[in-house]
């Protein structure tokens, strides 16, 4: 897949106005493991004058159960999110994978149930964070950091379900002191796959090992990704292998660069 590096920030007809408040869905992984990234994503939205609402009763999109064969449980948790994010505000999700679940799989998950219509309406309001920043808000970022070479990992669902990689990269390319070196096999899965990593640990291990080798060859000192699942997999494996390359969620990286950290 070739992705155009240039993005014309073009608001679409149904896109929300920036004066409207937005919901932030923090994802279960960000909540527990990457709260800094979550806060960075919220702050960057706020820095654009957007009012951010964080409903405290939110939890998980339901994907872990959904992909493991437990629809009923997934549906119960998903239903909770639909109820919690009930006002007609956009729902901003800092993960291509959770966003893909909420945008593209909720309608199927609730098909034929009384919540089907609600689920559909909810799905229409879901935005992946970088797309919302780049396309809807058309943010202008001012890089305050030292020169740095980074590489980027495309999460499979951001790439194939949400098709938002161009927006993530457009944000990175606004940073004038940051050189982005692309991976040789950028579109290949890192081997996370949720419960796949523990249901097929050997295959998953082989995949993440190849991913690390690719990252090493890029010569970058920082790996940026838009999904905490991939990030946890890749940085966990790098650390285990003694590879001294830092891993950062896109939001956290952008926040640090634009605030001189």
């Amino acid at each position, binding site marked *: 897949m*070739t992705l155009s590096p240039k993005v014309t920030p073009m608001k679409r007809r149904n896109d929300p106005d920036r004066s409207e408040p937005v919901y932030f869905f923090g994802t279960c992984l960000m909540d527990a493991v990457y709260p800094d990234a979550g*806060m960075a994503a919220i702050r960057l939205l706020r820095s654009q004058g957007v009012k951010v609402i964080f409903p405290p009763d939110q939890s998980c999109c339901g994907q872990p159960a959904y992909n493991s064969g437990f629809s009923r449980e997934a549906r119960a948790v998903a239903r909770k999110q639909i109820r919690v994010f009930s006002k007609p505000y956009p729902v901003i999700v800092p993960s291509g994978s959770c966003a893909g679940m909420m945008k593209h799989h909720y309608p199927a998950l609730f098909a034929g149930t009384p919540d089907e219509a609600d689920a559909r309406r909810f799905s229409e309001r879901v935005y992946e964070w970088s797309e919302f920043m780049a396309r809807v808000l058309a943010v202008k970022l001012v890089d305050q950091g030292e020169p740095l070479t980074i590489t980027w990992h495309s999460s499979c669902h951001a790439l194939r379900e949400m098709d938002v990689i161009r927006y993530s990269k457009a944000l990175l390319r606004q940073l004038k002191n940051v050189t982005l070196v692309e991976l040789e096999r950028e579109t290949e899965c890192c081997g996370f796959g949720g419960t796949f990593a523990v249901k097929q640990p050997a295959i998953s291990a082989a995949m*993440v090992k190849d991913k690390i080798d690719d990252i090493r060859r890029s010569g970058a000192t920082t790996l940026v990704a838009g999904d905490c699942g991939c990030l946890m997999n890749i940085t966990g494996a790098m650390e285990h292998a003694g590879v001294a390359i830092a891993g950062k969620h896109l939001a956290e990286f952008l926040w640090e660069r634009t605030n001189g950290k």
Partner: protein
Amino acid sequence: MGNESTFDFEHNIADALDDGQLRKNLRKAMDILVDKRRAVFPDIAYLDQLRSAGNAIKRRALKQLPRLLEQLETNCIKNGIQVHWAEDTTEANNIVLEILRRHDSRDIVKGKSMVSEEMHLNHFLEENDIEAIETDLGEFIIQLNHETPSHIIVPAIHKNKDEVAAIFHDKIPDTPYTEDVEELTAIARRVLRKRFAAAKVGLSGVNFAIAETGTLLLVENEGNGRMCTTAPDVHVAVMGLEKVIEKLSDVPPLLRLLTGSATGQIITTYVNMITSPRRAGEKDGPKEVHLVILDNGRSRMLADPEFRQTLLCIRCGTCLNHCPVYVRIGGHAYGHVYPGPIGKILTPQMEGLERAGVLATASSLCGACGEVCPVKIPIPDLIRRLRHESYDQDGSAVVAGGGYKKNLAETLVWKGWELVNRSPVFNEMGTRLAGKIGKRLPKVGPLKKWTRVRTSPKVARTSLHERARNEGVKDE
């Protein structure tokens, strides 16, 4: 390898991952196939349109499958082709055997046919003292080495040139060792020519069977398919019942998709369209043509609106080429005839979940297969569905062996997960607890598997929920 009765997926995977040569061969070959496909479909928007057309044509065919099969039969018979129906592989094998016996034939030359692999025809014939001779170069190589195909389009893809050279030298009498590809091909040709000339019966697969005209379409690059279907007096074609399409005008888009996706070719060297045996006054061609139409679980798939999509498949193999799992473990590890993403959805439906349901776990659901499938089969969705059928929590499974994995322990884990994620209080307690004891958690179960090659996830002391609250990001 490839032995279904002793299928041990985990063991196969470990072996394959350990085999450095295999992984190198696979990666190199898959890269070439992926690049060739990309080169032949440079226009992404056009490809997407073409894939939608392919999907629509096959969908339309499936919708009226019984009628089309009847029409195919009627038109084939009109053309002089004898049609046989086989409910399962045993019936199909016996039909082929009976034809061979009637012609007093002790051998059969075969073109590449995955359905004949599905039937385990070679083995069956061997037990009946009939020699099956594979004539596709790849199949010829692996047959010499007593292996099964590791890929549905390129059966010997797991072998490199040196390995082929060694096999030829070892297994074909009086063959000097050579790594020269042309010489190797010439050796195979010399051996096979004799067999073509002597065989009374030839067998082939079918890529598309056109109901409107009663035509069997077969693509290939080596000419061995044409030899198998024309040199012997009798030609037997075997096909799965999903191969039927409605009309001749359906062929061009499907053919373009098939050859482009499979080998990155605009068209194959040979496109055989077989509409009848030798007619009066014609000088060559088989005197008899038989078509064996195999069900083997396919009509069961057809009955389910979601699983039915499995039958859209045109066996191009490109989902294998793009699969991050296939490229690492190769076809044999899957332990069944159809490997890779298509195998993960097809095999459990054919063999039942108890025997093959585990295949559905070997996917990260990355979506690479669905993205390239020329007929737009949502392969990841079907894999996910099979996972659901494996636990069958709501008693709705349609695949044989549904619920085979159902167990209290896992059910409780997910019930607990549900509870935590539905109740804000439990959720907060859970995250807090994990933040406190996360580092000291014993490395057992999933965490043990995770930490084999990774450090433990670092649970934060303060959750995002708390941070947001502290920084004044509120609910309304």
